[in-house]
């Protein structure tokens, strides 16, 4: 092996590292190791002067390897790789030693911490000598997008993409667009018409040259990888259409909770116990009536039906509180001499304009009654002498009283749950689901619309219960992410990925099922597996599993890892003795 010229840079990180680790001592000790041409400590390596120091050393001293002992590589590895590139050497000739998170932040003893920093960095020096020059590769990006689901999310995403001039295939299972929003009359908290919101979207979509709407259709198969998917969509006649797409947006939404599962609420047994969607239907028809055709005098809204309960769904369905308040307003305006009671656990009015809306519900004299999770309301039929059809038993929390409220019509605010086919969809597009069945995002806060599969995005209530603003925001965010990829024209894959040595591969296919990213493909003709590098995340699962040792992870080769371990071992043996 050719002798390397290594530059070692020990960062003070202000006082973050320097207050525990004696950085000068570490730099001095490492400077004596064979192959190390220069070892320096500096206040902030990530600063411009710090990076400039590395670039200058590469150019003046002819360094061909660089070790930076600083923070976690998650933080600044890209920064220093860029510095290497600017200095004129391959960026993968960098190795970082984490002496902040793994050293100064977790240890108090300066002597031991300094020793550990020295050892970690010398292990990095050992490893970096085995680094190979790696090149990033790109694949072309297909600009067409498949949108699954024609609800408000799918419509918003499709329009955003098509308005930017890109082709969209909008696939909807039902025979109409609009999804669950299409079943709603007004929206909370501003009481705008849901139909108006949808009509504008649907009209534009039907006229849009760049959107192909496919009703009563379903995705049969999705193969390929980011930028180069092949979607097979089955139309109503059972014919399969092959669609090349670069990205997929999953907007499959939710279904409502089946209220008949809760026996104490008597849904399906007492005719005037209805769900929120049934009330929407009545409001849309313009008449709120009991099954007997009478105008109800007492209307009760029961929150959290199926939500926030250990027995059914532990999560909050987010939209029901405001929807219930909307009903209070709608019922009061439709039947001015009615009495509306609202049975809630907690009132969640967090959205824009929602708290005001809650206050306004007091003005229309809604009787708010707080019940406890563990004592849900019970509904029973009233007697012939009562002036109401039913009674609801409630253990009211704010008064501590057990009460019975008269009711002619009871509206159950049914929560949201994943669709029955969410498992099939997840399997088709290779994304994960949480324990409830909602699709999982790449990062709940920082990457809420991407998934673990590159090129497959999720938007709206298919990932968790959401209101219309959040759903539309997610749909447009997903579209923006896709448009950014299309604008680049190609997908750059990281140079770090797994490779199969086809000469060693026995075609056992163990790695095929193991790969969490479906990046390993089996070639039936060659009877060998190979990795689609654009999809590989370099997790190493296949490398470890391969019984033939045929798979190699670039930048994580056995030799590199053994070298690093050897770098640590002398330190270990010193301590044992």
């Amino acid at each position, binding site marked *: 092996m050719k002798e390397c010229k290594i530059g070692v840079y020990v960062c003070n990180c202000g006082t973050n590292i320097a207050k525990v680790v004696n950085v000068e001592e570490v730099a001095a000790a490492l400077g004596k190791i064979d192959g190390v041409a220069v070892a320096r400590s500096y206040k902030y390596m990530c600063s411009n002067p710090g990076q400039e120091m590395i670039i200058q050393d590469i150019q003046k001293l002819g360094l061909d390897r660089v070790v930076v002992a600083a923070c976690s590589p998650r933080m600044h590895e890209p920064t220093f790789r860029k510095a290497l590139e600017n200095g004129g050497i391959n960026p993968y000739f960098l190795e970082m030693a984490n002496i902040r998170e793994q050293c100064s932040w977790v240890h108090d003893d300066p002597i031991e911490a300094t020793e550990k920093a020295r050892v970690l960095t010398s292990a990095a020096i050992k490893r970096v000598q085995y680094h190979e020059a790696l090149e990033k590769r790109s694949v072309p990006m297909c600009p067409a997008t498949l949108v699954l689901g024609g609800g408000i999310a799918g419509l918003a995403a499709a329009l955003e993409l098509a308005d930017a001039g890109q082709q969209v295939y909008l696939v909807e299972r039902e025979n109409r667009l609009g999804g669950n929003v299409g079943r709603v009359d007004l929206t909370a908290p501003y009481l705008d018409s849901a139909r108006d919101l949808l009509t504008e979207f649907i009209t534009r979509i039907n006229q849009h040259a760049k959107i192909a709407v496919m009703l009563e259709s379903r995705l049969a198969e999705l193969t390929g990888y980011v930028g180069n998917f092949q979607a097979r969509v089955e139309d109503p006649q059972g014919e399969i259409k092959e669609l090349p797409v670069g990205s997929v947006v999953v907007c499959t939404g939710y279904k409502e909770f089946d209220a008949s599962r809760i026996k104490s609420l008597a849904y399906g047994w007492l005719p005037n116990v209805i769900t929120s969607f049934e009330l929407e239907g009545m409001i849309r028809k313009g008449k709120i009536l009991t099954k007997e055709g009478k105008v109800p005098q007492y209307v009760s809204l029961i929150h959290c039906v199926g939500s926030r309960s250990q027995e059914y769904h532990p999560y909050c369905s987010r939209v029901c509180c405001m929807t219930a308040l909307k009903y209070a307003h709608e019922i009061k305006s439709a039947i001015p001499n009615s009495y509306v*009671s609202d049975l809630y656990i907690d009132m969640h009015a967090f959205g824009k304009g929602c708290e005001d809306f809650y206050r306004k519900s*007091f003005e229309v004299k809604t009787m708010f009654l707080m019940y406890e999770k563990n004592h849900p309301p019970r509904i029973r039929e009233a007697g012939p002498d009562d002036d109401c059809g039913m009674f609801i038993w409630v253990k*009211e929390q704010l008064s501590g009283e*057990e*009460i*019975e409220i008269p009711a002619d019509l009871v509206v159950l605010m049914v929560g949201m749950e994943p669709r029955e086919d969410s498992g099939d969809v997840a399997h088709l597009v290779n994304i994960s689901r949480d324990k409830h069945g909602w699709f999982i995002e790449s990062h709940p806060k920082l990457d809420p619309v991407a998934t673990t599969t590159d090129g497959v995005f999720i938007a709206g209530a298919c990932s968790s219960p959401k209101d219309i603003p959040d759903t539309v925001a997610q749909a447009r965010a997903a579209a923006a992410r896709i448009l950014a990829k299309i604008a680049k024209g190609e997908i750059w894959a990281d140079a770090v990925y797994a490779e199969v040595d086809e000469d060693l591969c026995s075609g056992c296919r163990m790695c095929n099922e193991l790969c969490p990213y479906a990046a390993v493909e089996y070639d039936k003709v060659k009877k060998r597996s190979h990795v689609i590098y654009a999809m590989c995340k370099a997790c190493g699962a296949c490398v470890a599993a391969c019984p033939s040792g045929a798979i190699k992870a670039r930048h994580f080769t056995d030799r590199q890892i053994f070298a690093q371990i050897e770098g640590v071992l002398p330190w270990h043996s010193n301590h044992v003795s």
Partner: protein
Amino acid sequence: MAVRVNPKFIDELEYYGAQDVIKCYHCGNCSAVCSHSDEVFVFPRRPMRFLQMGLQAKLERSIDPWLCYYCGQCSEQCPLGAEPGETMMSLRRWLISRYDITGISRRYFKSPKVELLAVILVALLTAVGFLIYGFKYGDIHVYDGANAFLPASFIHSFDLWLAAAMFFLLAVNVIRMWYFIMSKAGGLHIPWWLYIKKFYLLPWQFFTQKRYSECESKMKTRIFMPWLVHLGLMLGYVIMLVLVMVFLHRLQAGPAIDWSVHAFGYLATVGLLIGTIYFATSRLKKKQVQYEKSQGSDWIFVGLLFFIVLTGVFQHIFHRLGLEMIANITYVVHLMCVVPWLLRMPFTKWAHLVYRPLAMYFAGIRRNALALQKDEAQLAGPVRQAA
């Protein structure tokens, strides 16, 4: 047993002045600031919740509204403007109408116009009756003694009949009040001897209104003004009532001043005048939260009382000045105010004169009975566990 909710109840209470109770979100600031609220009688928060929920049956049995004197601190502290003080006031009005068996009270509270009309009608009938009597049996130029226009003996017997009628109506109401509050005490056993043990509370609270003075116990600067004025008004009223009912002959005699009765009369008049002027100007200026919302019946209350005192004073002066005919006419006007005023008593706010001390008495008994029950439970506790 679950309590039946009456969703319409909150609408009903609007007539009695509870306009803002719906705004309450139960932070409990009102109960925290109240000097009278404690662990047994929690208010205004609890009655406000009951009212929001339409728990009419619970409120009917409630003693809480009577334990409040409306100092107004709760309404000042309320972050939502739900007016807990006014709500308690409206509950007192409603309770008065519930205790009243005739249903007249309810009609009055629902429409001040009806009440005003009734007052005017009674006043006119009174005037006609006394004028007919006066002109038939007496001389308008004679105020006192033989041939007097309105002789003391006649007025005295009229007063007694009126008092008897009032007493009867009030007695019925008081029994209803006792029935609501004490007989439906919610499973609480009340030994009979507690009624005797706690009886002292009745005169004690009636004559001192000590509880009213305690309203200010949590305030930084205590002025005791509302309490003192109220006490003066009430004592003045009671003294005047005793004078009129028992010593009318001597009161009406003249023109010499009989200090043994008139001294008390003057004293009572001062108390009544200060009281009525203080409450009338407070209501006009709305200087404190408790005076901001005056109902029709409040104005009739203050207004009538003021005219009674004024006409009483003037007839006394005219008589002393020897202006007997003017004194007689003033006397008729005075009676035109007094009779409707007395007749209103069982049906209006006026009745709190009786209900409030009674409520204090009942509250004392309830508190004692609860303590007994607790002691018993503590004694019986371990035994029951063993069984």
